[in-house]
């Protein structure tokens, strides 16, 4: 019997560790275009202490450790490129605390977005969190590890800006806490302690997040989305600017897609609104649609398509499967809002060149401080030719993002390389030093951000 496997069984038990090929197969790929790579072991720990032991073992044996939440990043970020131990974190799924008055929750890393949403709906209906558009099995921690953004992005920014505290198992096995929790206070703030932003955006290459304290926000009784359409993409930046000026919108997403045909060539903007009463809702609608956007309507340049009550969450997932049953992957980017028209046009060109119906989407982050703009490329899993096209389109888009002055969000290996080539050399150097300090044996999710070693 393999001694590493035996040691893993010792740590997490037989039922939660595997070397079965069919189970390892499941963990060898994600939903995107990345080539599969099989892990050598798959384990599902229940406690930070178990993770600690696993990491210590991996350090001793110099084998990779790849953390996995919902596995929904699409960019191959939890594909074990160099084999090793796949750490499936879904069993760590306790909602440890909800502090209603201080509006935060402490969750274990395996708690999914859907789990938190339904917990809050049931137990604290006046509180909510910023749920990303990903399918509901996406984890809170996995989303932090890639700087995700959700349906409260407009007022509050990236989801990773909404953290009050973290618990992390370092690559060498120490269990660290960050924020007020680290001095034995509650998990209510990250400030004003010295900031150690070492774990967000590093896609699991600097440690394993085991607990997150997440800010919660008011959940109003009526939540829904209105739709506004324009036929001139040039209008989008100014419309978003005006909408954010009202400070009344929870989420603003502009999108355009070739299929279904009614949306082709048009830009649709979903405008999420919430209110505690009909009076508040009407007031907001009046300010937004009659006063702010009224001029576009009367000139005939923009159309109001009504307000639908009852926010369907997650929202973006709903529009990602128009093709039904095929595959898809997108390049996400963080861009200045004013690049929307160019992003749309260039994305269409790339899609058309590769014979893929175009789908583009821009989510406003903060008061128009940036947008997450994504270019989605559909493919047919059973047809290698379509995968080839999607891959080529994804790479061209990574190049485009940097050309247009943006940054790539949750980049895959190709995008990471592009980013690192451009990184300020001192920053790059610091990154390498940090990485060497934290992970001297380079065991954490290797392949990702690797040239930083």
């Amino acid at each position, binding site marked *: 019997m393999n001694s590493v496997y035996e040691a893993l069984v010792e740590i997490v038990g037989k039922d939660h560790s595997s070397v079965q090929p069919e189970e390892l197969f499941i963990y060898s790929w994600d939903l995107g275009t990345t080539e599969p790579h099989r892990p050598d072991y798959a384990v599902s720990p229940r406690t930070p202490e178990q993770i600690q032991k696993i990491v210590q073992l991996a350090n001793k044996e110099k084998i990779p450790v790849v953390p996995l939440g919902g596995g929904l990043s699409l960019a191959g970020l939890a594909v074990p490129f160099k084999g090793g131990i796949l750490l499936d974190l879904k069993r760590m799924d306790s909602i440890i605390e909800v502090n209603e008055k201080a509006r935060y929750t402490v969750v274990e890393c395996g708690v999914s977005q859907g789990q938190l949403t339904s917990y809050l709906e049931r137990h604290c209906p006046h509180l909510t969190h910023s749920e990303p558009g990903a399918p509901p099995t996406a984890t809170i921690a996995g989303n932090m590890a890639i700087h995700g953004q959700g349906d409260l992005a407009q007022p509050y920014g990236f989801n990773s800006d909404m953290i009050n505290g973290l618990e992390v198992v370092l690559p060498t096995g120490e269990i660290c806490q960050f924020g007020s929790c680290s001095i034995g206070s509650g998990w209510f703030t990250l400030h004003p302690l010295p900031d150690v932003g070492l774990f967000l955006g590093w896609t699991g290459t600097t440690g394993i997040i085991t607990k997150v304290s997440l800010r919660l926000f008011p959940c109003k009784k009526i939540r829904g989305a209105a739709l506004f359409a324009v*036929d001139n993409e040039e209008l989008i930046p100014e419309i978003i600017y005006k909408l954010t000026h009202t400070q009344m919108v929870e989420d603003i997403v502009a999108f355009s897609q070739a299929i279904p045909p009614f949306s082709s060539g*048009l830009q649709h903007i979903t405008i999420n609104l919430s209110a505690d009463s009909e009076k508040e809702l009407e007031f907001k609608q009046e300010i937004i649609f*009659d006063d702010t956007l009224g001029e576009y309507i009367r000139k*005939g340049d*923009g*159309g*109001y398509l009504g307000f639908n009550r009852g926010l369907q969450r997650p929202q973006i997932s709903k529009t990602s499967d128009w093709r039904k049953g095929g595959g898809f992957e997108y390049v996400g980017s963080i861009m200045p809002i004013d690049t929307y028209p160019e992003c749309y046009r260039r994305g269409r060109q790339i899609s058309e060149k590769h014979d893929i119906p175009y789908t583009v989407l821009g989510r406003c982050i903060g008061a128009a401080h940036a947008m997450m703009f994504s270019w989605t490329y559909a493919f047919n899993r059973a047809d290698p030719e379509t995968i080839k096209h999607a891959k080529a389109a994804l790479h061209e888009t990574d190049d485009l993002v940097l050309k247009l002055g943006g940054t790539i969000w949750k980049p895959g290996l190709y995008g990471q390389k592009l980013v690192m080539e451009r990184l300020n050399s001192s920053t790059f150097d610091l990154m390498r030093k940090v990485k060497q300090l934290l992970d001297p044996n380079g065991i954490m999710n290797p392949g990702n951000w690797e040239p930083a070693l």
Partner: protein
Amino acid sequence: MYEVKYDEKKCLSCRTQDCLIKCQYIDIDKESAKKEILKIGHGEDSFVLHECVTCYACEEYCPMNNHPFYLIVEKQEELDIPPLPRPLIQRGINLGVPFRGEPVIEKVNGRSLLMGVFSDLMFLIQGKLFEGVPVISSDPRKMFHYFCQLMYLHYARTSVINDRLPKIIETIAKHEVDEVICFHDECYGTYTSYCSAVGIEVPFKPVHFFEFLYDRLKELKDEIEPVNLKVAYQRPCSSRLSSDKHHFVQDIFELIGAEAVEREYVDENALCCGGTIVGQRQEGSRKRAAEIEKKNIEDMKSAGAEVCVFNCPACYNTMAQIVTRNGIAPIYMSDLCRLAIGENPAGWR
């Protein structure tokens, strides 16, 4: 090229000017009404073309069958006075483009029920009422091949209707149908009223859905248990094109023991659901739509309605939620009929 058959002489000799006098959305006196409709007939600009909310009602009000509404819409397009913003028009026109292959044509050789563009509401046509009736346009992916196109009246795009409609009729005819029961009365209005108004030939006999339901209920009379519900009927815009069939609403209610509550906004005086108005270009359209919605609801409530009966899926989508919030249950007419014969309404919310 198809063009609406409008007869100026009828307006010149008209004593009522009901088309505009009865209009619930434009305030106009008799003299101006005559002047404006004649101007429109001559292809001149008129404030009516700017203020019309495209509710279809004048088509019913005109006692001379002179097609004032079709005329208004045709001229709105000619003079480029679109009721809706450009992007909504483009969106609406693109909506009707079939994009998932050709439909499968099964020969019917007789009578059939046409779902038109509402194939995803197949669940509404289950049970005894529909036994043995072949259905065409049952596949939501192919439904736009059967889309009657009349919706584009709201978009002031008769050119789109005239361009696409003959092809739609051809597709339906390929099923070798002689009688077509129209699930949506907009289709019925298209094939009976619009086609004759612009001279498009229809090679089958359209049957109004309510007439069909009424006849089927009569056949199943022994199985009817009175529903004993107080109902309000939300009349859709397209029923203005088949006002001769409107009596079936009351006939059905009587047959199944439903009590139609006394509404102010009923029959000719019915108010739009607001769905077509909400996005229009006119100043205040959104608010106007909300006001209409409120008027409709208050009217139903004060009349004591327990149930609001719908004919049109678009009205249902616009109003079902608000009706429910006000303690009134929304239901399609077919489901109400199913309830009367002891079946479970499929769409009951």
